[in-house]
Structures are given as structure tokens and as C-alpha cells.
């Protein structure tokens, strides 16, 4: 399990580092919102899921996409705007999707996928499917009215869904306390009548707690479940750089998070040889994915008008 978790964590971290490295070459002409530092939540949650389970993600979801099993080559090609991308170059970094692996897409408009996820969960329940829906969103999304409307409906209909609020304390550069009169997001879900829990970014603990919720749902128990997961974004809101000198936050705020970096932590738990094996395999896979993206063609002009309607 440790090895599997490490592989996922390391892979996500390295993919995003590569994205950040390539970015200044202007080969990726798409706004990238890196989740470096936030990998733990994606991995802890997605490891508790099965391939047929469904996730709804956000523009900052390279991590969740990969953790859920999203196709890496298609992702990098999508960032490059290539026709081999997950959306044929018509989505970009903010709209990753991989239906075959249960990834139902990501929106650049904050909060919208929360509403989509409850509809999907309603469908799952109506059709008596046995899979589970998970919806990822940020603390910023909980400022939006649609968040509350969705919590109410999910609780009213007892939907088989798990909400994951990735609370990294900021919406762009605005701290939560400047936007929310009370910072306790989980409490705002709890008033609608659902079990809540506050978690950090300890992958194993996340995995354990999410697994318990999944187990309940899988065995016919009712949802929804709500988890508020504290985490921290290491990079700037959008783009490949750091921005601790911008004035809205101090590096000292980040340091405790960096010290408990889950990627490092899991690395330490493995014996060096096994670790090296994992890392090597990942590096090869990543190199291949970027090569694939580089070598793939841009979509032909005719694609412009293709697929407006199904």
C-alpha cells in the first residue's frame, strides 16, 4: 500500500514539476493551476475509490485526475493543445476529462461541478448503480450559493456522494477570513444534516476515513458525507512560480506544510531500492508522455466546428 501511495504521490508531484519546467518554453499555452503541495488529498481520497467510481474535479485538479487514474499521455497532450489530448485540445489544462476512468470533467467557473456532481449522484441512486460519486472543490467554492443549494439537495435526497473540500486557505490571493465570516466550512455542510469530518493532509488518515465512508455507501448506507481537508498550495495561484514575495502570504506559513510533505514522508517509508524502482518507472512514463505530446499533431482546422452538438 505504501508503495502504491508513494507511486501516486511521486508521479503527481513530478508531472507537475515537469509542467512547471516546460511552461516557460511556451509550449503549454493554457493557464496551469498547479496542485503541488496538495497531492495528499487527491491520493488519499482516490486510493479509496474503485475505477467505476466517479470524480468531479476543478481547474486545479491535475492531482485528482492522475490519482483517479486519468490517462497521463492524454493529459499532457491536452496541455500542449494537441489532438491526442483528453479533449482533443478543446479543453485545456482547466478542463481535464477521462470518462473511461470516471473523471467527469473540470470547470473553470468555481463551484459549478458541485451541482453537476449531485445530479450525477441522483442518477446513480435512481439507477441503483453501486458506484460512488466524489466531488472535489476548494474553500473558495464554498462562498458560492450553489454550494449551499447543492448540500441541501444532496442531504434531502440522501445521495451516494462524498464531498471533498480542499481548503488551502485562499481563493486566488484572498485569505478565507477575508471572505468568510466564519471559517468553519464543515459546519456549514453539517447544518444540512450530513456527517462531517475535518482532516489534514495525512494520506493514510485520509485514506482510512474516506474508505470508511465509501464502505458505508457501498454497503447500502446513505450519504452524503462531507470532508474538509486542510492543505496548502505551494505555488502561485496560476502559473509555474512561487509568489511568497507578493505580499499576501508569507513563506513561513508554507514551511510547516513543506516540512510534513507527504511525498517526502512516503519516500522515507520505503526501502531505497523499491523507491528507486518506482521513481524510475514514473520518470520513464513522464518522459514518454511529454514526448507523446510534443510529437502529436495539433488538431486539423476542421475540428473547430466539430462537436458543437452531439
Amino acid at each position, binding site marked *: 500500500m505504501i508503495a502504491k501511495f508513494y507511486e501516486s504521490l511521486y508521479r503527481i508531484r513530478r508531472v507537475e514539476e515537469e509542467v512547471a519546467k516546460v511552461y516557460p518554453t511556451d509550449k503549454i499555452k493554457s493557464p496551469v493551476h498547479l496542485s503541488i503541495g496538495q497531492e495528499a488529498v487527491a491520493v488519499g481520497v482516490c486510493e479509496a475509490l474503485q475505477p467505476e467510481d466517479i470524480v468531479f474535479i476543478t481547474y486545479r485538479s491535475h492531482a485528482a485526475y492522475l490519482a483517479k487514474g486519468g490517462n497521463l499521455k492524454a493529459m499532457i497532450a491536452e496541455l500542449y493543445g494537441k489532438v491526442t489530448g483528453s479533449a482533443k485540445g478543446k479543453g485545456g489544462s482547466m478542463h481535464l476529462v477521462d470518462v473511461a476512468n470516471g473523471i467527469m*470533467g473540470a470547470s473553470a467557473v468555481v463551484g459549478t461541478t458541485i451541482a453537476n456532481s*449531485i445530479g450525477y449522484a441522483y442518477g446513480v441512486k435512481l439507477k441503483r448503480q453501486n458506484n460512488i460519486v466524489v466531488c472535489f472543490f476548494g474553500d473558495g467554492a464554498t462562498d458560492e450559493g450553489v454550494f449551499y*443549494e447543492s448540500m441541501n*439537495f444532496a442531504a434531502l435526497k440522501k445521495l451516494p456522494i462524498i464531498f471533498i473540500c480542499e481548503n488551502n486557505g485562499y481563493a486566488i490571493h484572498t485569505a478565507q477570513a477575508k471572505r468568510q465570516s466564519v471559517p468553519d466550512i464543515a459546519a456549514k455542510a453539517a447544518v444540512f444534516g450530513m456527517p462531517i469530518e475535518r482532516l489534514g493532509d495525512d494520506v493514510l488518515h485520509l485514506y482510512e476515513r474516506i474508505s470508511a465512508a465509501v464502505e458505508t455507501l457501498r454497503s447500502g448506507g446513505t450519504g452524503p458525507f462531507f470532508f474538509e481537508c486542510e492543505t496548502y498550495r505551494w505555488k502561485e495561484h496560476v502559473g509555474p512560480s512561487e509568489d511568497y514575495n507578493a505580499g499576501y502570504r508569507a513563506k513561513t506559513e508554507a514551511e510547516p506544510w513543506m516540512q510534513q510533505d507527504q511525498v517526502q514522508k512516503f519516500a522515507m517509508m520505503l526501502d531505497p531500492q523499491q523507491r528507486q524502482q518506482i521513481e524510475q518507472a514514473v520518470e520513464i512514463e513522464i518522459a514518454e508522455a511529454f514526448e507523446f505530446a510534443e510529437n502529436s499533431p495539433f488538431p486539423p482546422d476542421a475540428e473547430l466546428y466539430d462537436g458543437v452538438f*452531439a
Partner: protein
Amino acid sequence: MMNRNNVSYVDAISEATAQEMAYDPSVIVFGLDVDDHKAIQGTTKGLLAKFGPDRVFGTPLSEDAMTGAAIGMAMCGLRPIHVHIRMDFMMLAMNQLVNIAAKTHYMYGGQIRLPMVVRSMIGKSWGQGAQHSQGLYSFFMHVPGLKVVAPTTPFDAKGCLISAIRDNNPVVYVEHRILHFQKGPVPEELYEVGPGKARITAAGSDITLVGISHMQIECLRAKHYLQEKGINAEVIDPIWLSPLDVDTIAASVRKTGHLLVVDNDWATCGASAEIMAAVTERLQGEMRFTVHRMGFANTSCPPTPSLEYLFYPNGRTVAAKAFDILKGSAQNWLPNERPDLKEIEFRGPF
């Protein structure tokens, strides 16, 4: 036994829904008050009893999230019909419709499709006023990825709804409160009235009247008034507004030389502007012709009866405008109201 030659628009909708729900278990109906005793003016009547509360349910007042939910349901393989009792409330759903529903299929490179219908009603009369009388469908015509239909007759109400339900894309289905009282022939079987085909509802040779939604009725009335003056108008019902059948309209104007679009909405950037522009693009250079439009007065809808009457085009003012177009402006002819042209009209109270 139902008289199939005299089925109401309301019954046509509920029948189409019930038949499609029986035919396809993935069809569901939801929205504020679809399951109460008024049943959205009867259009959802009987559905709850037949299909149960999982497939027919009222919702909280949460238009934004419920629209998003409809999208999610469609992603999951359902064919949701989301109902709003007033089109005005769709302003709360614009983000999901414009930013998500319209774009999902394209933006995800074809991986996801959204078969969903959003039904809503345009209000009129009895002083419903500014916030309950808007026909805002031009917003949806504007955005690629959405289809828009506004059937006028009970026949089309049924056929278009079935077509909309079976369409694999988001369809905005526009009703008009007054049209609910229309009656006409409606076949019992399932049939589709699909996108992209306008209907010539009355043949003519002197001018082409395109009447959208309830204004189709006013155009048919105008045709009668114009006959008093020996003018023979052709009347067209576009039915589907997006995609729009420009061919049929242009062919008619090719014959008549004059187009008057009468819309159930404001003119500016509306469907009437679009139809004028599209027909002009088609015909200019080929022949001489003129294009014109009428719509809501350029104000909010006032509830007081005297001003409310002035707010809307009607058969007489449409006829007067057509007469001016043909005979030169400001002829000041306005036909007298003819009681024989009054079909049943909803008058309130609510």
C-alpha cells in the same frame, strides 16, 4: 375517450412526457412544483402517480444547483426534463446553461453528451408585470451548443417535446402561458417534430409574416385583417429557433419581397433581429426586398391593463404595420377588432 382533434397544448405536453417516460426509463421530470396539484398548469399532471416520486419530483427553490443537477443527471445517462414555471427564473440558471451545458460536449472533445430539456413558460396578462412576462430565448439562441424550440400548436408541442427529449443535446423548450389554452389535433402515437424545419402556417404572396411563439397566433389574426384590404400574407412559424430554418423563410421572402418578424420578446439583439439579418444575408444581391420587425415595447412589462395592452404586438397592430410596409409608411390604417378572431385567451386571475 379523448377527442384527438381537440387536444389542448397542456395535454399535449403531459401526454408527450408520459409516453416518453413509459418508453424510456431514463426520462425523468423535476422542478419546482411539478408534483403539486396544479402540476405546472396541468402539464405534469398524472406523472407522479404513474412514475413515482423518484422520476417525478418537486425541488427546493434552487434554480442554479438544480440546473447543474440536470447536467449531472444527463452525464449519468438520464434524460432529465427540468421545468421552470416562468422563463424569468432561468436567469438564475444562466451560469450552468451558458458556461456548462452549452460547452460540455465540445469542451470535453466529445467525451460527454448532455441529453436534457429545460422547459419554461413565458407569462402574459393579468398584471404579472416586469418579472413574470419575459421571453428571453434569444440568450440561448446566441450561445453555440444549445438548441431552442418554441412550439405554437398542440401538435408541435407534443412533437417538439418528444424530439427535444430524444435529442442528445441541451434543448431549451419555450412555452407561452397563453398558448397553453390552444386546442387542436394531436395524434396519439409518438412522433417527432425535429429541429431545423419551419412551417408555413398560411400560404400567401404579398408579405411574409414570421410569428414566434404566441405571436404566431397574432400573425394568423393579422392575415385575416389584411384580407380586408386585399392583402395576402404568408405566415410562417419557425418552431425551432436554434437551429433556425432560414431556408424556408428566405424562400417565402423570395416570393413576397417583404419580411415582417413578430417576436414575443424585445427586438434589440432578439430573434427578430437575427431573422432579419439571416434573411438579408441570404437574399441581398439577388433581389430587392425589405425586412422589418415588431416585438415587445422597449420597456419592462407594465402590469396595468391599459399599458400592458400597448406593450404587446397584436393582430391589429401587426396588420397595420404590414399594411404600412406594403403601401408606404404611416397609412394610419388600423383594422377594427373582430370578435370572430378571438380564440380563447387566458385572462386570469392567477
